[in-house]
């Protein structure tokens, strides 16, 4: 089985790359364009038709800045929970993790765990305070009692760094995936994804983005549930039977039932765990979703719904991965002449769809994979544009005195620019290894956005100086360590050995951020620092009670 991997996963350290591939959404090697998949294209066109109709409907309702950024705060907790899961469950989770389970079994579960545990932490530590303090972006909260301009600038850069990295990985992944699934040209695929993303956000704002994410989550969960059900039916609903059959046919045998090569040493393990866990709590497009509900109660409900759907989804991908071991790896229909999986191991979930549901269901799952990417990039584009218009333009340049209409117009221009940049970079990075980008995005989110946000809500003595210097140091450390680490220094830049020996920077970069924020806050004796500490009590009361929180807008 292993010999078949390098076709799609870059040749080299396979264990490591598999892990990165799972995170990256990107198929990291050359892929062969497949023949045109007509049912998939028809189903995808239906999805596009419905979502564009919703965008048109949303554009008529979207008037104010609150409509544009936060869907007027009128989304219900359940809807938002579904949309959050649609925002969060990427094509990587679906194809990458099921591929990881397919090749190494248990290791796939380790990844899923990391992605999931961030959610309870968001619930316990962040959700309600975030909702009570902010309006449109998490920078609203981080800069609540601090000096607006420096903190908003830092938060905007943290957001844009995360959005840019995530977006490039998604665009490249989308292009390659669509080549494989639909038989469309890479460039056409990237342009289609970019254009649809711009359409949704530009015309429909948060309302259309929310609906795209909700629909995507629903069809993804339906498709994955059906596949898992068919797999379980095949083994008479016995998990033991499923594992038994998988162990019997897998080249690694019983070792797929225990931790394998994914995590090589304790430092990397802990670092990865921290990045996944706290990175989620620093993703701008996820945090932004909390302002679409009317109050803290609905915000809490949405986290619960999202955690439930996301956890359920990871259990499904685990079953799907094992199902692929018994139904795809044993079937010559899904292998080329050398015995390799057609299209690479990232395609096993798609092949499994064919195995359990025939060509129509295969088309459905292909369309779902495409829809999945669209929903994620739409959320990213909106978050990126909001960082530019709400944080940089309205907050930093206009000092919170921006005209609302003009601010929204700036945001829409930003979406257009982001779309064009994403298309250009998606094409530029076509043959690059972008697998590290999502990992880096999570590390930056955990080392810059998250510490500043958390301490602004919890630590009275935080000052602007501490937040900006500490958060900035966290951001820089994450990027530098990632560049000097094995993923970029060795695999991308081709050096012999890494300067920083671990795969993930989060353990050190988060420590640098927290220590930096602490040190530069407690030594800050300026008058403004004293005022910022004094404002903590008022902020605390509002964060707890919701008094003064921005509410929903009635139409």
């Amino acid at each position, binding site marked *: 089985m292993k010999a078949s991997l390098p076709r799609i996963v870059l040749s080299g350290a396979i264990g490591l790359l598999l892990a990165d591939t799972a995170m990256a959404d990107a198929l990291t090697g050359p892929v062969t364009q497949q023949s045109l998949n007509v049912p998939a294209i028809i189903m995808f066109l239906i999805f596009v038709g419905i979502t564009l109709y919703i965008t048109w409907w949303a554009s008529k309702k979207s008037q104010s800045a609150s409509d544009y950024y936060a869907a007027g705060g009128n989304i219900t907790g359940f809807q938002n929970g579904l949309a959050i899961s649609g925002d969060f469950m990427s094509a990587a989770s679906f194809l990458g993790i099921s591929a990881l389970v397919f090749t190494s079994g248990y290791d796939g579960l380790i990844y899923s765990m990391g992605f999931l545990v961030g959610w309870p932490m968001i619930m316990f530590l962040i959700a309600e305070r975030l909702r009570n303090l902010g309006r449109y972006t998490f920078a609203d909260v981080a800069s609540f009692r601090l000096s607006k301009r420096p903190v908003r600038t830092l938060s905007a850069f943290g957001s844009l760094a995360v959005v840019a990295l995530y977006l490039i990985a998604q665009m490249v992944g989308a292009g390659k995936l669509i080549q494989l699934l639909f038989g469309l040209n890479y460039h056409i695929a990237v342009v289609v994804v970019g254009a649809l993303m711009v359409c949704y956000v530009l015309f429909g704002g948060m309302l259309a983005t929310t609906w795209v994410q909700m629909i995507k989550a629903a069809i993804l969960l339906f498709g994955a549930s059906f596949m898992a059900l068919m797999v379980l039916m095949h083994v008479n609903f016995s*998990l033991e039977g499923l594992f038994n059959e998988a162990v019997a046919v897998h080249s690694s045998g019983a070792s797929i039932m*225990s931790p394998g090569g994914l995590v090589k040493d304790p430092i990397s393990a802990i670092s990865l*765990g921290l990045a996944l866990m706290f990175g989620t709590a620093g993703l701008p497009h996820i945090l932004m979703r909390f302002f679409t509900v009317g109050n803290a109660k609905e915000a809490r409900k949405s986290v619960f719904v999202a955690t439930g759907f996301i956890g359920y989804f990871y259990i499904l991908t685990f079953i799907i991965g094992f199902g692929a071991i018994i139904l795809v790896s044993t079937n010559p229909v899904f292998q080329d002449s050398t015995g390799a999986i057609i299209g690479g191991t990232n395609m096993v979930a798609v092949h499994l769809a064919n195995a359990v549901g025939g060509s129509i269901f295969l088309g459905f799952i292909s369309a779902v994979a495409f829809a999945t990417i669209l929903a994620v990039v739409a959320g990213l584009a909106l978050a990126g544009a909001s960082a530019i218009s709400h944080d940089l333009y309205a907050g930093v340049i206009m000092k919170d005195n921006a005209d609302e209409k003009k601010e929204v117009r700036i945001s829409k221009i930003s979406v257009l620019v982001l779309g064009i940049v994403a298309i250009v970079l998606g094409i530029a990075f076509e043959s690059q290894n972008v697998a590290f980008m999502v990992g880096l995005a999570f590390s930056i989110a955990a080392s810059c956005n998250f510490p500043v946000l958390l301490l602004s809500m919890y630590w009275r003595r935080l000052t602007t100086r501490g937040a900006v210097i500490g958060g900035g140091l966290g951001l820089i450390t994450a990027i530098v360590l990632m560049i000097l680490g094995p993923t970029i220094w060795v695999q991308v830049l081709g050096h012999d050995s890494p300067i920083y020996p671990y795969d993930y920077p989060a353990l050190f970069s988060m420590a640098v951020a927290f220590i930096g924020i602490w040190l530069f806050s407690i030594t800050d004796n300026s008058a403004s620092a004293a005022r910022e500490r004094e404002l903590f009590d008022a902020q605390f009361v509002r964060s707890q009670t919701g008094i003064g929180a921005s509410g929903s807008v009635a139409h």
Partner: protein
Amino acid sequence: MNGPTHNDTQWREIQRNASFQELVQKRSRFAMTLSIIMLALYMAFILLIAFAPGILGTPLASGMVTTWGILIGLGLIVVAIVLTGIYVHRANGEFDRLNARVLEEIGQ
């Protein structure tokens, strides 16, 4: 509208309110407890993977293929969902009632 103001003193009154103090104390303690449980379980899982992967690879019973690792991994996913549910249940019930009382008492 975006940020506290100096002459607004209502928050001082709320801060002294007994119901508010009760709310803050109960909710903070509850959230901290659940966070520590989740963090400890996850870190224990990660450390097990890093230092003693063999434990996770032990079959549930002799002759079985399913390992403790599978049970623990899937169990952690369920625990994460359940803990979140427990928090929402108490926060949207008891804590929100307490919050409503605070608002009532200070005449909001």
